[in-house]
């Protein structure tokens, strides 16, 4: 009977396509929005993840995420270095600044100062060239992904002079930073340069980056640093996670994405429930005839479920395909960086679609199951 059921449905092109496209659109909405949401959350972790070498981040106890540092005293660096188990500790400056390009345009940027010797904090991409470029006095290395925000006309930033906080700087190289949630253009300088061009009230150490000695676990080390210095010390994972939590707890993002994803679910529910109910209602007499002829309720249930699952499957495929295409074609766009279709999203959407079409099919077919076959004789 399944064969027959599928033919029955596919013969009804309009409903069949409507259902498949509706479920496809809903799947697209759900999976694409979820992928973007997850992508945005990972951006919250990116400032931390982009500093591969640091196993522990030491900061003022009030700090909640990397883009809102509180000034530490210079002594902090030495106190951290004296903690047993610390292999190395490097200063790291991170703060908002203003960059004026040669033609006078102003842009807010995130200025990062990396340790003069180790250059820890410079992104791993393009590392050797960037390290070379950053050596000179007041030389800055700019993030390629966000440089267009400073130079909207597409000019090559390398070789340009500019002013940061009214100090003359030269852009000597490019690097590729992970996209951050704050989204500001990111420029890198040596730590001492960054401090020297930042106004006195803010020209302070932001973080101390720490590497653990062999055999010392970052978690133990962080605990020890906290105990000895009274500062806050988090492992790389903890601090990355704190960046994600900050977005979840302090922005409207979970709500707005929640609404979009919820709308996807709603569209799926409404379209499948209505279309299936309509399909059943239009075919009610025929289902009555089938029951009279001797088709069992179980067969009818199988037929309708089979129909629902088929369109659910096709629609789901279309939607997932759409999201995959969106991610694939956006892979080189920095504003879509880090977005991917996680298997959990693929599986979750499959489950949601399955539940929705099964429930809709079941609720619409109930009428047929309860129906008295004798109605087929009534006008």
């Amino acid at each position: 009977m399944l064969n027959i059921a599928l033919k029955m449905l596919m013969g009804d092109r309009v409903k069949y396509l409507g259902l498949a496209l509706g479920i496809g659109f809903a799947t697209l909405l759900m999976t694409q929005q979820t992928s973007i949401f997850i992508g945005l959350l990972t951006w919250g972790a990116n400032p931390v993840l982009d500093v591969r070498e640091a196993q522990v981040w030491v900061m003022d106890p009030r700090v909640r995420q990397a883009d809102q540092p509180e000034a530490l005293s210079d002594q902090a660096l030495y106190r951290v270095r004296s903690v047993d188990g610390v292999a190395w500790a490097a200063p790291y400056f991170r703060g908002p600044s203003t960059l004026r390009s040669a033609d006078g345009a102003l842009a807010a940027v995130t200025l990062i100062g990396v340790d003069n010797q180790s250059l820890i904090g410079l992104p791993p991409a393009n590392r050797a060239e960037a390290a070379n470029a950053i050596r000179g006095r007041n030389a800055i290395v700019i993030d390629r992904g966000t440089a267009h925000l400073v130079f909207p006309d597409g000019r090559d930033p390398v070789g340009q002079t500019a002013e940061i906080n009214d100090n003359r700087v030269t852009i000597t190289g490019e690097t590729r930073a992970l996209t951050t949630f704050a989204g500001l253009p990111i420029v890198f300088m040596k730590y001492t340069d960054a401090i020297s061009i930042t106004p006195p009230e803010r020209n302070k150490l932001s973080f101390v980056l720490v590497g653990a000695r062999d055999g010392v676990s970052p978690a133990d080390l962080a605990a020890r640093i906290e105990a000895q210095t009274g500062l806050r010390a988090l492992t790389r994972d903890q601090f990355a996670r704190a960046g994600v939590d900050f977005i979840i707890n302090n922005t409207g993002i979970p709500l707005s994405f929640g609404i979009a994803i919820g709308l996807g679910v709603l569209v799926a529910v409404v379209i499948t429930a209505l279309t299936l109910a309509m399909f059943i209602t239009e075919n009610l007499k025929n289902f009555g005839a089938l029951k009279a002829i001797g088709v069992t309720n179980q067969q009818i249930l199988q037929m309708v479920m089979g129909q629902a699952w088929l369109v659910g499957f096709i629609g789901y495929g279309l939607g997932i395909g759409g999201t995959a295409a969106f991610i694939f074609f956006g892979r080189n766009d920095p504003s879509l960086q880090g977005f991917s279709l996680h298997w959990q999203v693929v599986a979750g959407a499959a489950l949601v679609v399955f539940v929705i079409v099964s429930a809709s099919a079941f609720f619409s077919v109930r009428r047929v199951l309860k129906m008295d076959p004798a109605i087929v004789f009534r006008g």
Partner: protein
Amino acid sequence: MEFPSGAGSIRVLHRVSLDVAYGAMTFLVGPSGSGKTTMLSILSGTLSPTDGAVEVMGERLDQMRDAELVRFRRRRIGFIFQQYNLIGTLTAAENAAIPLIADGTKTETATRRATDVLAQLGLADHAWKLPRQLSGGQQQRVAIARALVHEPALIVCDEPTAALDAEAGQGVMRLLEDAAKSPDRAVLVVTHDDRIYRFADRILHIEDGRIAPDADHGEPRHAH
């Protein structure tokens, strides 16, 4: 048989018994509301009576569980409805094959058998058409094929010609007579349409839920 009606109920059939002979076309005629459709529904196992025993072809329908009743209908009864009730998105052959498919025959085998039956009914060239590509008379012939394909022992028809013009109605009845009448099959036709009475081997009259006394002929099978 009683149906609920307002606060109480109305009795529409009163202890009826009728003989529908094998190898013959028996007509059940009577005024509107006399209980013809109700009778046919009960005999074919589509409606369970509120009280009383129902015995059809030696089987006690009132004692059957739902699943048995469905199986009885699927294997022993062929149905022809006034409105044909063909599924619009299936071909004539697929529609006619449904009783076999429902009973577990493979779709291919079933449609092949259905195509043969359609050919007997003069629809060889129409087996792959959809119902809407067929005339009313042709659609009713597809419905006849569907009622015959599984070779049931009893065929029930409720107003088979009511939706057709006189000529098409005659054509359908002629084909029904040729194809359905067989020594091991009984055909029961419920109708108002006196233009097709000439196809009856026997006519039973029903009025107010009672069947008028009439002499028995042939080898009777009972329905109480």
